[in-house]
């Protein structure tokens, strides 16, 4: 009896603490969502803790400001970039983990070494390079180089080592399975948890990227969501409440995507790189 009560108290304290932190974590999100539904003139007059009536007018103004153009632009970059990152990382990781070939060790060390280089080290020359390629004002600088994701290759090679059973590959080979079919039909399903997790991170990273697009995209019609949000207030005189609604809407695709993949995401992290 006493033990049962103690367990109950333990449980209540546990859930209480976890919930308290969850509520405080979500509080800024909540304030942001609430502020986007108020009329701008009253936004800062008092503290708003509940939703207002201005959601549709604010949304309307957001549409008029061309915000959803930025949205489409961001998708046009993030979707192909994510697919290419996942493909090149899965292929590279699989080859490094499951093939025995000349230079494998060197390539593995190369990946491990470059993992430690800060990604933004080459920014200045990268802009020069994109000018030489005539890629200024295009989306190529964010799509093609996405294939060179060191972290992705490293992660997938670690994951492939333990996740893909050798026996299944061997028996497929005995049955005369070609290399491409082997990769896409037999190996890929085993890599899926890590690929989905990497895909989520790649999508979030591309979607949120502000620094790169700001240096490359000069035309307003090409702007992505982060540049749109950053320039909205100063350049185009969009009201605060509208801008805040835009921030809420910019976060939505990421939340939906994360909700859909969170299980794989956690599995991909747990089963992979950080095990040992």
């Amino acid at each position, binding site marked *: 009896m006493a033990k049962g009560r103690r367990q109950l108290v333990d449980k209540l304290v546990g859930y209480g603490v976890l919930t308290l932190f969850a509520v405080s974590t979500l509080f*800024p999100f909540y304030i942001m969502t609430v502020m986007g539904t108020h009329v701008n003139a009253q936004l800062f007059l008092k503290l708003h803790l509940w939703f207002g009536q201005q959601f549709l007018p604010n949304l309307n103004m957001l549409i008029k400001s061309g915000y959803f153009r930025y949205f489409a632009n961001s998708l046009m970059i993030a979707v192909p970039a994510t697919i290419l990152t996942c493909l090149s990382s899965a292929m*590279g990781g699989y080859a490094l983990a499951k093939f025995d070939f000349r230079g494998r060790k060197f390539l593995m060390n190369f990946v491990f070494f470059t993992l430690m280089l800060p*990604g933004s080290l080459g920014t200045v020359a990268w802009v020069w390079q994109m000018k030489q390629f005539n890629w200024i004002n295009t989306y190529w600088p964010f799509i093609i*180089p996405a294939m060179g994701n060191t972290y*992705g290759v490293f992660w997938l090679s670690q994951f492939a080592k333990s996740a893909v059973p050798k026996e299944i590959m061997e028996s497929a080979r005995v049955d005369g399975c070609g290399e491409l079919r082997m990769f896409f039909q037999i190996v890929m399903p085993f890599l899926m948890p890590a690929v989905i997790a990497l895909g989520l991170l790649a999508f979030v990273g591309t979607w949120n990227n502000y620094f790169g697009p700001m240096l490359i995209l000069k035309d307003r019609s090409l702007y992505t969501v*982060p540049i749109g949000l950053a320039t909205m207030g100063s350049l185009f005189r969009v009201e605060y409440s509208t801008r805040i609604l835009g921030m809420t809407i910019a976060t939505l695709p*990421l939340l939906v995507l994360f909700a859909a993949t969170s299980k794989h995401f956690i599995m991909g*992290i747990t089963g992979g790189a950080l095990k040992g």
Partner: protein
Amino acid sequence: MEGTRTTQRKRRKFRAAPYLFCAPFFVTYIVFTLFAMGFTFYIGLTDWNGFGEMNYIGFDNYIRMFDFATDPRLLETLINTFLLMLLSMPIGIGIAVFLCFFIQKKSLKKKHVFRILYYLPALMTPVAVGLLWSILFDYDNGTINKILLALGIIQDNIYFLGTKWGCRFVLAFLLVWASFGSTVLFLSSALSNVPDEVIEAAYIDGAGPVRTYWSISLPVIRDVIIFIVITGMIGGFQMYDAPVLLFSSGPSGGLPYGGPNRACLTMMMLIYDEAFNAMHYGYGAALSYGMFLFVAAFSFTSMKLMTKKE
């Protein structure tokens, strides 16, 4: 004998495949990232302004950035990053360690829901995070000031972002909020790899749950904590979006780039400002290598410390 021969035959038969599979990654990485890193070093040796000729000027830029008497900004960014990490990391990791004590408990169900909720801030667009926090911590109109006033905790608005230390605390708070969720994720998955027998043995020896967690489970995941510290530091040097937006345009008006007295200027912000605002590409490129030097020195030292302790 038979076995080795077949594997050798197999190896020869499939020889092209691994190289082709590796090619997309290695080719793009070398052509774009690695080349750009190397060429940045060369640009650092020139006086390039982004448009004209690249004139070789030797190591002037690389020497000038360490002349803190004329340009103290590189030193400032180093100090800023250390201060921000000192303010944010112990709190962020502390919260994560505290929460993971409950998350790793077997008796609590549905814990993955909490892990997901804690991770949500890490997903939010940093530009939006910076803007949101500039509104929350605004002087005249900020939500935080309004709440503190309503609760009677303060009598006058606090100028959070307008003072050197105030803005550092706000940015550190932002960092804690945005990153403790991923620390929870990494810690809890590492904790789930601690063998059950080890924990049960501790219980049998009479250790309570807190004691077991502190002295049995946490030492096992020390490497993960070190990993989090190193990546957090490297991320701190390269942080750009959130601090820029935090000061750009709050409801009470914009603040200087990098905050008052450049108290929140990060290395990446300095590089951007020099290369792309002031059009000193050469000096900006040199500063990139200044950043790299600090990152490398920091990673090397912490790894040395890590292996020494074992």
